[in-house]
């Protein structure tokens, strides 16, 4: 236990330093608070807008994919240099690694991580609705023409 005496002494010293300096400053320091003094201290110019900006989560996903494939290259490159020395064993280990990455790649493709444009899908319902709107518009135009012709005739 004697070996640890130094640590105990150090801990006591550290704690008493904290206590003494805080206590002395609390007792002796004059207290004249102003709003500026009470404000949390920050460096530089006061910012006039939120520093945290929102950006699409897709950037994050692409960065993740980049890292995954970057690491793949790190593994592949030395293997490619020493491929023959590592023989079939190395080949199969590498193939396993690439297959695992491929499965992940298939997954992210399917999850639409690489589809950057907003989705435009036409299901039957919207299509029919669109037709109906178009048909109504055409009908309205026709009746307008009719009315025009009638008024001309009159």
């Amino acid at each position, binding site marked *: 236990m004697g070996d640890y005496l130094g640590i105990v002494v150090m801990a006591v010293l550290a704690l008493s330093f904290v206590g003494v300096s805080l206590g002395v400053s609390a007792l002796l320091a004059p207290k004249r608070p102003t709003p500026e003094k009470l404000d949390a201290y920050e460096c530089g110019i006061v910012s006039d807008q939120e520093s945290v900006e929102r950006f699409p989560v897709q950037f994050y996903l692409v960065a993740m994919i980049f890292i995954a494939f970057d690491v793949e290259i790190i593994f592949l490159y030395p293997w490619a240099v*020493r491929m*023959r*020395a*590592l023989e079939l*064993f190395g080949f199969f280990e590498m193939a396993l690694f690439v297959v*695992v990455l491929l*499965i992940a790649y*298939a*997954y992210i493709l399917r*999850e639409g991580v690489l589809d950057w444009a907003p989705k435009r899908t036409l299901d039957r319902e919207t299509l029919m609705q669109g037709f109906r709107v178009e048909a109504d518009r055409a009908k309205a135009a026709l009746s307008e023409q009719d009315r025009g012709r009638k008024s001309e005739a009159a």
Partner: protein
Amino acid sequence: MNIHAAADIPTSPADYSAIAPELAMLGTGLVLLLMIALKRFKNDSWYAAIAAFGTLFSAGWAIALWNAVESGEVGDDHVRFAFSGMVVADGFGAFLSVLICLAVLLGILLSDVYLRHENAGKAEYYILLLFSAAGMQFMVISNNLVMMFISLELLSVCLYILSAWHRDRSDSQEAGLKYLLLGAFSSAFLLYGIAFLYGATGTTNLVGFEQYFAENVLFSSGMVLLGMVLVVVGLCFKVAAVPFHMWAPDVYQGAPMPVVAFMAAGAKVAGFAGLWRVLEVGLSAYELDWQPLLWAIAAITMLVGSVLAIVQTDVKRMMAYSSIAHAGFILTGLVAANEEGVRGALFYLVAYTIMVMGAFAVISLVARRGEQDTSLEDYRGLSRREPLLAGILAFLLFAMAGIPGTSGFVAKFAVFGGLAGAERWVLIVVGTLASVLSAFFYLRLVVYMFMEGLPLEAKTPTLSRLPVPGVSAVVLAVTVFFTLQLGVLPEGLLDIAGRATLFAG
């Protein structure tokens, strides 16, 4: 330089059978990933079924490995190192591997109910669960600090995501973020410790440590001790031992219930295995230095966990502190540093895994949709509404408190037996005191359920009967059965756990 020189790079023979359980776990995860990519089942329960099947497969491999190790077919002294000493196939690892499979299996069953209930289901959940379990399994067999760190990260990163799984509850998001930040912090400690140990000995292999200390005498062991302390800090964070427990209550309260149950059981198993391998295998030469350290951690963990659980009014939070207290009891098995102690700790881990899964199954049912009803008040008069559920929860709480006739009693008895063997009388007294204290808050919940009337407020009409899905019923039946069975007839498992501690190192 001759690039095409014949096999001049030493490639260790790939001994895949040593990591077969882990490969089965990871493989199932990859299969699920591929299934999501190729063809989607409409019903998420299919993914749950595949995950459960893969876990059974993994457990089968682990049992086969146990048999192979036991019969001495492989290696010398029932131990076989594989992948250049990165991992080790031994009884200890195989035992805990099977236990992790059990935790995953019960976790999957709970999750299936929970996710359908909360409408938060996605098949990726099960993939993360399986990968996390694979991390735990790799951790219990790792024989190298680098391997241990990578498996710890694999299990942690998956748990961070799972904690934040429930998108509609801000609590869950908060839990995930807190766990991530504090977990990353603790990983840095662990890594720093590994660096110091490597600096002191020139290896990261745990058996290599042992050899190094056997062959060399250090003039000053400051660097080893510093590394040891930092590694202990990093691993104690994972088992939620005081004073590294700060994350546990918030994470347990916020994270989805099945994740909490899985985390409480699995992460403890992995963290305990890590501590055992680092301290008792790698740093056995420094036993006199780490025993007092662990003694203190175990003592304050038991006391603080039990005391702070008393003032909680939320049942999930109470379970978090209870899990901290249990971590302390498990650590006493390491303090004893003898065969009975480790055997007791292994038994304790099994008993705790089963108890905590059952308890969370009930808590999850009582909480209803959105995990609303988790305060102590919601348990008032539960025995009138749901006599069977209340009875089951009461039994599991008795087991956690260590009432005789349950697995919890045998577990505590077993770890204290180890302490008695090592003549650590003070720690036994502390542990007994802590277990008396902890009985208070377990029994208080029982009192709320059985001896208090129904709440008088307007809430009463909305309290319909709780639907109990078949899957939950299975989990409850299994957990109650084994808690009782291990409490009445513990010899079988104690014997197996005893054989799991045979490790020549």
